[in-house]
Structures are given as structure tokens and as C-alpha cells.
């Protein structure tokens, strides 16, 4: 059993009227079953409102299933005594860096998590050092977070999660508000954590280019997982993805267009090198 396992997971949002009675039910996640292995880099794609963030919030028990079960490292999120343990196993990074930074100095912000866990002060500092190093932010430890760029702020947020030593980190559109350089910095930091620390990564994104190095990709639509596979398998289905309001990386789209125009090249080209090698044999 993987570190994240969901079985027929379902979640309803309720809308209440003025008297507190349920007026409307909306199913956001429906019959989702996944099995994510420890150390994997997994990407989740889906249009706005497809249920991917709702699903992600189940991974650290911010939301509890209406139906079905989700286990994080064999712990059922519905069993309340496990809740805090689960949140220490699975950390979360959100879209807007300004909403998740609370410290006035970078190192204090990173230390907030372990401090809350009751870690002895000495160890907190050790963890802060380590996490800042791993995200390449050590040089900024005495800086004020609000003077940092978006990419740097997100790396501080990631360091803050890492200081809690999670086994798994969920990133919900961490690059949506960043410039190209910031996007690159954050992605590199996440890949490095995955490779070197073997942290399981669940990356939710709207940037198709960020997905090509993932081990496994899930595509969600109307609360269901509608496609899954390697990036190559997913992105070779250009028309299917368009149907789900998604896209493919520009290089894949270009290859697809060339193929449609009669050029003899394979489906699912993901990188510039692949395309160049195909065209300039």
C-alpha cells in the first residue's frame, strides 16, 4: 500500500440557507481511487472546479471524506486521534505566497511549524538550517519575507513545510502567481527535494510544462479521475486534454500540428530535444 491511498473517495460541499438547513449539495470529488507510492512525483491536472484542490485537501485531512476512505501512511483520516500525525506526514503549500507566510523574519517563519509540534529549541534551529539549505534560501534567513520575490516566498513556504519533516508534500498551484524565473526556482527546489530527500510530491498545476518530469499524471474532471498515466501517455492525447479544458506543452502541440500536416513523427513528444532529434535526423 502506497503512502497516499484513496478508495472510492467522495466529498460533498453543502450550501446552507438562513436557518442552517442544507439547501444544496455539490459533489466535488467522486469515486476517486488512487495509490501513490512513497518517493513518487505525481502531478494532478484539471480545469478550475474539477475537484483537484478538494482532493488535495484530503491528503492532510483539511477536509474529511463524505464517502470512501483515504489513508496517509496507513492512517485513516477519519480516525481523529491520527489527525495531527497525518498533518505532520503531509505538508501543504498553497498558491498565494502572501497568504501563508506569518513570520517577520524568514527563519522564524520556517521555525513556526516545528515549534508548534513541540520540538526542542535546539532541534528547531537544526531543522530551520537544513530546510533553508535544501530550498536554497539559506542566504535569506535574516531577511523580511515581504521583501522577497514571489519565487523566494514560495521557497520559504516550502522550507516551512520541510522543517516539519513530512514524508509527503502537496503543492496546490505553487507557481500560478510567479514570473518565469520564480517558476523555475520553485520547480527545481521541489524536484530536488523529491530526488534527494525522497519526499513524495503531489503537484497541482495549470502549467503543462511543469508536468513533463513527473512519474505519474492524474487528470481530473467533475470530481473524477478521468485519465492517468505517464506524461508521455497523457500528452499524446491532445484532443482528449482539450476536451477537459486543458492543454499540452507548446512543443507537444507543435509536434501534433506537424503530424496533422503530414510530417512523420511520433505522438507525445515532450521536450525540445526529442522534437529536434526527430526533425533533424
Amino acid at each position, binding site marked *: 500500500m502506497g503512502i497516499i491511498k484513496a478508495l472510492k473517495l467522495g466529498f460533498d460541499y453543502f450550501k446552507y440557507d438562513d436557518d442552517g438547513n442544507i439547501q444544496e449539495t455539490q459533489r466535488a470529488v467522486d469515486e476517486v481511487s488512487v495509490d501513490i507510492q512513497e518517493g513518487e512525483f505525481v502531478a494532478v491536472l484539471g480545469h478550475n472546479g474539477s475537484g483537484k484542490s478538494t482532493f488535495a485537501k484530503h491528503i492532510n485531512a483539511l477536509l474529511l471524506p463524505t464517502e470512501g476512505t483515504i489513508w496517509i501512511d496507513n492512517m485513516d483520516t477519519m480516525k481523529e486521534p491520527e489527525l495531527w500525525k497525518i498533518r505532520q506526514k503531509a505538508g501543504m503549500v498553497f498558491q498565494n505566497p502572501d497568504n501563508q507566510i506569518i513570520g517577520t523574519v524568514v527563519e522564524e517563519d520556517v521555525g513556526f511549524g516545528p515549534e508548534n509540534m513541540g520540538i526542542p529549541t535546539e532541534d528547531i534551529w537544526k531543522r530551520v538550517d537544513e530546510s533553508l539549505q535544501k530550498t536554497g534560501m539559506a542566504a535569506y534567513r535574516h531577511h523580511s519575507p515581504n521583501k522577497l520575490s514571489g519565487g523566494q516566498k514560495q521557497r520559504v513556504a516550502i522550507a516551512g513545510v520541510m522543517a516539519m519533516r513530512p514524508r509527503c508534500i502537496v503543492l496546490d498551484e505553487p507557481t500560478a502567481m510567479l514570473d518565469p524565473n520564480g517558476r523555475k526556482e520553485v520547480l527545481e527546489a521541489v524536484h530536488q527535494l523529491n530526488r534527494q530527500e525522497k519526499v513524495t510530491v503531489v503537484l497541482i498545476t*495549470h502549467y503543462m510544462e511543469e508536468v513533463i518530469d513527473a512519474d505519474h499524471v492524474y487528470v481530473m474532471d467533475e470530481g473524477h479521475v478521468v485519465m492517468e498515466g505517464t506524461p508521455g501517455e497523457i500528452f499524446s492525447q491532445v484532443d482528449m486534454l482539450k476536451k477537459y479544458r*486543458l492543454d499540452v506543452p*507548446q512543443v507537444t502541440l*507543435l509536434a501534433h500540428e506537424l503530424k496533422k500536416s503530414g*510530417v*512523420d513523427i511520433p505522438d507525445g513528444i515532450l521536450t525540445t530535444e526529442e522534437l529536434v532529434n526527430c526533425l533533424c*535526423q
Partner: protein
Amino acid sequence: MSIELKNITYTYSPGTAYEIHALKDINLEIPDGQFIGVIGHTGSGKSTLIQHLNALIRPTSGSVLYNGEDVWEEKYDRRKLRSQVGLVFQYPEHQLFESDVLSDVCFGPMNQGMSREEAEAEAKKALLQVGFKEKNFSKSPFELSGGQKKRVAIAGVLAMNPKILILDEPTAGLDPKGRDEILDQISELHKARGITIILVSHSMEDVAKYVERLIVVNRGQIAFDDTPREVFSHYQELEAMGLAAPQITYIMHALKQKGLKVDPNATTVEEARDDILRALKEAGSPLLKGGNEK
């Protein structure tokens, strides 16, 4: 009709330890009817720059001219200016506050002195023009998805009939289809209403696809001001500024290096496809299947 920035300098917290020169000696002319893109890394000064265009901030030195008149003259009607130069901020959820969508969009025009009926007419027109469905007019803005909120925010500015529409990253956080829809609609507006569009974006692919003129802001100065094609041919300099070229540009450069005679400055998928097909044909490539003339 135009906006002109003359020797604009802007300093945050002047005279303190936190003094930052956000803009340095900017000169810029924005004539009517252009579709302009503005790019620059976080902190480059682009947001400070666009806030000068509708007099939200006052330059430390230099002047802002709208149709030849200095907007910081004592008697200048800056309220009127702000209804002619509309600004849509990055986080639309921060600028929606009414109990239903239609009232929210009516707020601007009613502030301009229109009656509720007139304002509603403008609001409905604007909402439909950004692709917002009539059946959702009475919904609370807080029930809407990110893409719908963005549409309402844009409609709220559009209902004031601006001559110039400035959008600060209108597509951040939207899914690819939503992004294309919003940008297509903005492009339609540009054509239908003939208004000037200024689009601030972090997506090089989007600006390559839509804008006719691209302004690059770096360290408070204008680094480039040209067509996207011309600007992206300086991709190495852009990278040094924390930016990039569209992925297509990199592909074309790589192909050229490997000996395929393509135009390295293509910036969109369509341009690249046509150019690669042409180059393959000229080279008599075996990759082209039967039916294509050699």
C-alpha cells in the same frame, strides 16, 4: 488621444532606509487603439508603472500627460481620468463586494453618475461581452469560479466605458481553456470597441500570441519596446532579466542550430508549424509523406 509618460521617476519611502527607486526616467507613449503587453520579473517596477497610467500614484518627478494635459495639474479631473483608464487588478476576488453580480458591475457606472437603469444597461452589455452568462447575473460573486470572478471584475471596469483597459495578470490561476477564453474575449473587445489594451503578463506564450507591441520593464527602466518577435529575438538578454522567450522560440533556435533552415524568431505555434513545413519541403525531407510536392 494618448497617454504620455515623460521622465517619470518613482521612489518608494524616499529619505528612509527602505528607499527604493521603483522607476527611473521612464519615457513612454501609448497611442490609441494598441494592444500592448508588459512583461518584467516580480519587483521590476511594472505594477508601479501601470498605476501611473491612471494617476493612482503620483510620480516623484516627471509628468503624465493624457491627451496632452498634465494629469497632476491642480485642476485636472483625475476621477474622470480613472473612468477612462480602467485598471483590473490581479486578484479579482478583492474587488468584488456586492451581493450579486449585476449590482457589482453597476457600481462603477453609478459612481459616474448614471441612474440604476442606465448603469444596468451598461453592466449587462459589459457582462455579455466578456462571456458571462445571463442566468448567473443574480448570483453572489462569492459563488463564482476564479474564471467567472475575473470576468465580472473586467466587466465592472468595462461598464464605465473606458478608452484604455489595463489588466494586471488577468489569467493567473486559470486553467488553460479559461485563460484562452478570457484572452480571446479581451482581443475581441479590442477589435469591437477599438479600445487600447495593456496586458501585464507572466506568460511569454500569451503575449507572443496576442499583443502587437511588447514593453519589457527591468530594474525600473524600459529594457525593450518593440514587436514581440523583435523582443523575443533577444531571449538571452531576457533570461538575464529573469524572463524567457516562449518555448517555441527555443525550439526554432535549436532546429536552426542542427541545420534545418527555419526562421528562429517565430514566436507562436502556428508560425513555427508553417515555417518548419516550408523548411522540410525545401530540404526534401523524407519525413514528409506522399502527397506533398518535393
